[in-house]
């Protein structure tokens, strides 16, 4: 039923091919999970991809078309998505407008909201995991680090999310975080879409904290109760939060509502950080320009 025509990528645990679904002629991507390398049987990333993509059907989340075994390899058949936001941000020949950015943010947040209301945290949101379909739809992809919201007393590893998109509670090593970590990543992606360069590119985990707090201010117990109890807190350089003016200068193209939108996603204290629903209902999406029609974006 499926062909593998061209190898388009190779990761730690999978090789990705382009192919066709014979019965319909539909272009598809096949993620072939390497299984020989792993001493503990099926790799955790593969198990997570299978587990969560099986449950989620949403226009802004990548579709798992089929799964099959072949020659002792597990193959995930996914919808074909030719490009991603990282490619678009980096390619300076591609011009896009605030209305385009608004459209991408709307679609991303709809996909993230759908995961969160199914109590699934993605835990690796970044531009190259936001793929684009031929008709311009953003699709949240790569659920290799996803997990269901745990039972309240469970401890979670803080070593998740690609560093530049990692929320402060994770940088501090928190083990009882919530889906708020995904919203932080979306906030950083928004900043990067406006700047067209990575907003907080730390070279290592420690520097990531410094870069983050230098740009957005070091949190204190006043705005984030008990933040000083994190063991890493004492080694911190204390920076003041940026003034509104400084933010305006940094994000010249952003309207007041756009700045509010970003600041609420990048609120240090995860308890106060907006949820996906609050983001979707924000003034930013109600003011002009309206979000572009995805299929019209070049």
């Amino acid at each position, binding site marked *: 039923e499926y062909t593998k025509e061209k190898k388009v990528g190779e990761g730690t645990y999978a090789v990705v091919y382009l192919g066709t679904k014979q019965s319909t002629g539909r272009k598809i991507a096949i993620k072939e999970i390497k299984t020989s390398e792993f*001493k*503990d*049987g099926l790799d955790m990333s593969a*198990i997570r991809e299978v587990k969560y993509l*099986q449950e989620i059907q949403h226009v802004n989340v990548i579709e798992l078309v089929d*799964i099959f075994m072949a020659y002792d390899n*597990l193959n995930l058949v996914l919808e074909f998505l030719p490009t991603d936001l990282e490619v678009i941000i980096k390619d300076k020949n591609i011009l896009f407008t605030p209305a385009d950015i608004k459209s991408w943010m709307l679609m991303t947040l709809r996909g993230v909201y759908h995961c969160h209301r199914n109590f699934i945290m993605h835990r690796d949101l970044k531009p190259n995991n936001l793929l684009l379909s031929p008709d311009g739809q953003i699709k949240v992809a790569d659920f290799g680090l996803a997990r269901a919201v*745990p039972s309240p007393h469970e401890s979670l590893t803080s070593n998740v999310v690609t560093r530049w998109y990692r929320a402060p509670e994770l940088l501090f090593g928190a083990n009882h975080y919530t889906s708020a970590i995904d919203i932080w990543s979306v906030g950083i992606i928004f900043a990067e879409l406006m700047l067209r360069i990575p907003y907080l590119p730390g070279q290592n985990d420690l520097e990531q904290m410094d870069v983050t707090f230098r740009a957005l201010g070091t949190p204190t117990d006043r705005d984030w109760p008990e933040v000083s109890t994190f063991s890493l807190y004492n080694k911190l350089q204390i920076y003041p939060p940026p003034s509104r003016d400084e933010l305006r200068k940094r994000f010249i193209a952003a309207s007041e509502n756009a700045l509010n939108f970003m600041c609420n996603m990048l609120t240090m204290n995860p308890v106060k950080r907006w949820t996906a629903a609050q983001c979707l209902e924000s003034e930013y999406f109600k003011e002009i320009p309206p979000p572009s029609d995805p299929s019209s974006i070049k």
Partner: protein
Amino acid sequence: YRHSSQYRFWSFTPEQLEQKRIDTNAQAVVSVEERLSAFRDENNADLTEEEVKTLLEKAVPVTMEEEVKLVNFYAKKVQGIAQHMNLPTEVVATSLTFFRRFYLENSVMDIDPKTIVHTTIFLACKSENYFISVDSFAKKTKSVREAILKHEFKLLESLKFSLLNHHPYRPLHGFFLDIQNLLTGKVDIKYMGQIYENCKKRITEALLTDAIYFYTPPQITLAALLLEDEALTLKYLETKFKPKEEEAETETEVDEKKKNKKVEDKDNSPKEDKPESSINYDVLLSLILACKEKII
């Protein structure tokens, strides 16, 4: 829930479930008969009269009913081993669910349940983010890594790659809260705590029955609650789902509601809009009573 793989792939009517078991057993019988006759043909010359007679009498495939008994016997073992390993309640439940589903798709005549017990627990640990390396798992279960990994793929495939399970434990926590909300001042918290623990045990036992294929997790939870305290559960269900006009509201209840309302307003939590149409009280009650019978 209707979008979940649990509903789409693993919910059946009793008739569908029985048919599935019959089909799985029948397929295995065919392959066993083929292997037997091939064996007889190959060894025709060497077999003594006695051996041919024994083959005919003893080497007969198991029936579907016998399979179900054997699978249930081993399902209890899976539960026991997982509990003995001190795995979290949800992981034990997932192990058990994986094991039982596997034998809806496979016959014990094809894969001996003994060889799949550890694999289901090992995969459940991975799937529920309770990762244990295969070597330390082998040590804990006095097994060997090859045996544990041997059928992992087969298991995943037989599960139709559906790993996310909704167990009745979280709904129990949910109803524990909602009962407090609806029956404010009428339930003693300490008593509720006792009910909670007893229901957890009943749910763990219910996972061994076919109720998990016929009913949704919350329905199983409500059946367990009904078994624990019928009066309280019926009171809650009436208050929650019985259309208002039928219910003769006593004076106190009206005051209660006013008090609740004030509290809720203070809470500025969203208004409780009762989609009367979506849950039919009588249908729900009959479902839960039938589920209770199944569990018993």
